[in-house]
């Protein structure tokens, strides 16, 4: 049932959007050739489009409000999210995991080299996402310069290899340690900062690293970058491109599993709980006797370690690094992976990385509209599903002890 009021409202909305988009959508100017092109068709499209979208929007808004009211009234909605139910159910969960495991293991053997390469890229982002998840999702520190650590790792491998001929397996731990050191270096000055101040300083830090890499030719070879970085070797054997791509894929799988394992263990550890406490309330957290400085620094340095290792991996995979790969958009992309996937949720972050990195690859045909769609998706997701694809479930402890104790 669509009421008259709704039609009226949708009509007004469409008039408003036709007005709003008039200069940009309808008129196209070319000041050089002094040509003005009028595209009235676009106006009609905008009108019809916004008229229809207005209904969808209203419907979704109503559903959302209903949901909020229900929770406010304390009603159990009774629907645990589907993803959670699947995870809770052992009978689905275990074969599912086995299926995914088998699938990932045989993936490079059945699919082409290209599929393997983009899957490896996605896995690098999984690692980056999981690393940033420590900083943003667990410790609640908004970091807009995460890409700096990624750059540290990539350049660490590139330069160590160039000057000292170090191989991938040596560079990986060194890169990780360097990342941790940089994380602490950034962490110290920003210890006192909160929320958005922190965001802008980290953003600045990311930019500083990129600008230094761009300008300091003697150190980093400037914008032309470093080429001919070797791919990882297998016990000293150099592999052909095809097999080394598959090899990198398996290394990435192993690293991701390792990351998941560590992050999962960290979450439930003492330090993990300290992070969550810090995220929820800094003052209360300090009052509980948690050392704020130490907690923040560990979050930064552990997050940076993963980014840095992912950077080493990136250099090994691309065999070429230059500063253009480490812009602020990269940081934003990683942040979007974490938030869209579901902050604090490991499976969510993995899903977020796979969706955000693989979809554009498969939608190459629509590449023009890719970023437009991406922007829209961010807004819509935040409004209607703020928890992300697979939100984190907080552990709930229910007090039911008395009754059962009586009975027994």
């Amino acid at each position: 049932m669509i009421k008259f009021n709704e039609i009226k409202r949708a009509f007004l909305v469409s008039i408003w959007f036709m007005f709003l988009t008039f200069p940009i959508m309808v008129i196209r100017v070319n000041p050089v050739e002094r040509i003005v092109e009028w595209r009235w068709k676009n106006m009609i499209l905008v009108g019809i489009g916004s008229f229809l979208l207005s209904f969808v929007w209203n419907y979704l808004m109503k559903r959302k409000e209903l949901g909020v009211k229900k929770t406010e009234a304390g009603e159990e909605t009774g629907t645990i999210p589907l993803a959670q139910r699947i995870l809770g159910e052992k009978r689905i969960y275990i074969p599912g995991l086995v299926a995914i495991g088998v699938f990932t293991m045989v993936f490079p053997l059945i699919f082409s080299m290209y599929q393997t390469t983009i899957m490896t890229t996605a896995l690098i982002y999984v690692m980056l996402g999981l690393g940033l998840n420590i900083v943003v999702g667990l410790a609640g520190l908004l970091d807009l310069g995460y890409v700096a650590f990624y750059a540290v790792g990539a350049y660490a491998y590139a330069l160590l290899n160039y000057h000292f001929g170090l191989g991938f397996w040596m560079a990986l731990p060194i890169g990780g340690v360097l990342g941790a050191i940089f994380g602490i270096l950034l962490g110290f000055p920003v210890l006192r900062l909160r929320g958005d101040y922190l965001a802008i300083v980290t953003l600045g830090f990311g930019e500083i690293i990129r600008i230094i890499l761009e300008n300091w030719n003697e150190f980093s070879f400037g914008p032309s970058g470093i080429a001919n970085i070797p791919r990882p070797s297998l016990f000293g054997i150099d592999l052909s491109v095809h097999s080394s791509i598959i090899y990198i894929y398996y290394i990435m799988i192993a690293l991701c599993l390792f990351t998941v394992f560590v992050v999962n263990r960290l979450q439930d550890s003492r330090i993990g709980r300290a992070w969550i406490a810090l995220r929820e309330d800094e003052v209360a957290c300090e009052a509980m006797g948690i050392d704020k400085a130490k907690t923040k620094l560990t979050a930064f340095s552990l997050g940076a370690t993963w980014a840095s290792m992912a950077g080493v991996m990136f250099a090994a995979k691309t065999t070429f690094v230059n500063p253009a790969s480490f812009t602020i958009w990269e940081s934003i992309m990683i942040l979007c992976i974490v938030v869209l996937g579901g902050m604090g949720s490991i499976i969510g972050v993995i899903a977020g990385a796979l969706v955000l990195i693989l979809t554009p690859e498969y939608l190459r045909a629509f590449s023009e509209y890719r970023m437009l769609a991406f922007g829209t998706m961010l807004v819509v997701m935040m409004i209607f599903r703020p928890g992300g694809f697979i939100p984190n479930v907080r552990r709930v402890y229910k007090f039911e002890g008395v009754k059962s104790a009586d009975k027994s």
Partner: protein
Amino acid sequence: MKRYFGKVFVAAIVLVFAVSMMPGAGLAADTIKLGVAGAHSGDLASYGIPSVKAAELVVKDVNAKGGILGKKVVLLVEDDVCKPEVATSTATKLLSQGVDVVMGHICSGATKAALGIYKAENIICMAPSATNPALTQSGDYPNFYRTIASDDAQARLEVDYALDVLKAKKIAVLHDKGDYGKGLAEFAKSFIEQDPRAEVVLYEGVTPGAVDYSAVVQKIRRSKADAVIFGGYHPEASKIIMQMRKKRMKTVFISDDGVKDDTFIKVAGKYAEGVYATGPRDTSSNPLAIAAIEAHKKAYGADPGAFFLNAYAATQALLNAIEKAGSTDYDAVSKALKTEYVETPLGKIKFDNKGDATGIGFSIYQVQNGKYVELK
């Protein structure tokens, strides 16, 4: 029972995927697969799309004449957005599709990243626009060729012109901090330093996209430079030249083929008058070039974009070499590229041992009455 079902389910999924996404490589050997890679979307698309059109036109011609060695030529067009990390995926995608030779990539950084992969698989790659000197001069990429002169040749020409013709004594060298601009500026700087007649009074990078360049412009004024050599693209160049002229500075402005673009004149308007820029030698009188441009106009209804002729020549050179070599074998094609001359819109070319085309060079242009005019 349930567990059993799970296994069957998994196997089924794997099978379905495996069948549906089997790589198409090695199915048809009766075609020659020409890969075309470069930026076909994003902010640098305007440099990449003309090369696709050039390849399409050449291939259409060749196929109309019965193909090469009796085989049809097929194009595999892939986008790399000019990003190194995407370029490696692009390269592997082309390899998965069984590409024989590649025409591309557009940007030097992306080309370097992709070359590592082509090299290992013995695929020849010819770029229409990647001008980084290291690509040919380092000797790291024996499989690389290009139909455009490298940056140092351009810097050489700019410096020579400033010293010999304009008699500049003090030169300010600016760049946009980018791969292309900074590389060029570095060469210009070292060439001037080697020459006793002039000195570099200022060497700076400007931040692309900054709201204005007034501080840098004031600095140029203070350095009392007679000439500015700028390495970079036209948006920054026009901002700098406009602010210089608005501050009543008459300093000579010399730039590169990133600026030798009609958009520069359109944006900078009257301030562009008198600006020098180097660009590929004017070949518009070459009958092959006229024919190629006509074909483009006929097919797409517009004038061709940047590097169109370079891409046209590259495609012709590659196909010609395959024909002369009698196969797509790496060694045979390499030999053919280096020994056999080919008629292209850029003139009669072959390639030297490093992979640079002989007979392709730059000349200097000046903006006169709102047009670039080649100075002889």
